């Protein structure tokens, strides 16, 4: 049973490691809200994300990148709300890390 993990907390106030620990190799990640700051070039969280297995698909919510003036690195796929819904159907379950 694959899981789509939703992350919304800032990786600087709520460290990423315990949320990435239960990540399976076929799981997906969707960054929204302040979790998008993990994509800040030169930050430790981005390095953690880049070390995830290539089989883990990493996505980010478009509006949150725009609001923060952030660009998505190559491995990150940008989705809008219809894309968010579609992602939920693609994985067996969804886990929102509060």
């Amino acid at each position: 049973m694959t899981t789509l993990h939703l992350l919304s907390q800032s990786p600087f106030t709520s460290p990423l490691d315990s949320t990435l620990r239960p990540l399976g190799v076929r799981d997906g990640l969707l960054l929204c809200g302040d979790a998008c700051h993990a994509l800040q070039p030169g930050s430790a969280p981005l390095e953690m994300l880049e070390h995830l297995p290539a089989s883990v698909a990493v996505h980010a919510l478009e509006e949150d990148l725009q609001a923060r003036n952030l660009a998505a690195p190559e491995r990150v796929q940008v989705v809008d709300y219809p894309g968010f819904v579609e992602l939920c159907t693609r994985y067996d379950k969804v886990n929102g890390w509060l």
Partner: protein
Amino acid sequence: MAKAMLIVSRHSPWSGLGAREALDIALAGGAFELPIGMLFLDDGVFQLLPGQQPAAVEQKDLAANLQALPLFGVDDLYVCRQSLRLRGLDGQPLALPATPLEGPELADLFDRYDLVITL
């Protein structure tokens, strides 16, 4: 067949309602005879420590409700070993028989459940 739900409890028993409201979901599920598992993660592991005295801060005893889990048919209890380790608690006796899991075992745990709620 009923879907199995994993409840991930990340809050200390002292930080407000988080721990209690996660537990209430587990107990409600148990009451409906649903297959429920609980994982204690991050500060949630503090819920498992023995010898707590909630009366010292005029708080109700969460431990009593935790002890009720098996009575409600919730036997699948797990604890993140890395969370224990970071808090200097690895190897300490726990008040509930929760199975300690390492990183890859956590991913397997998530994999086995149909539903997850993290609180």
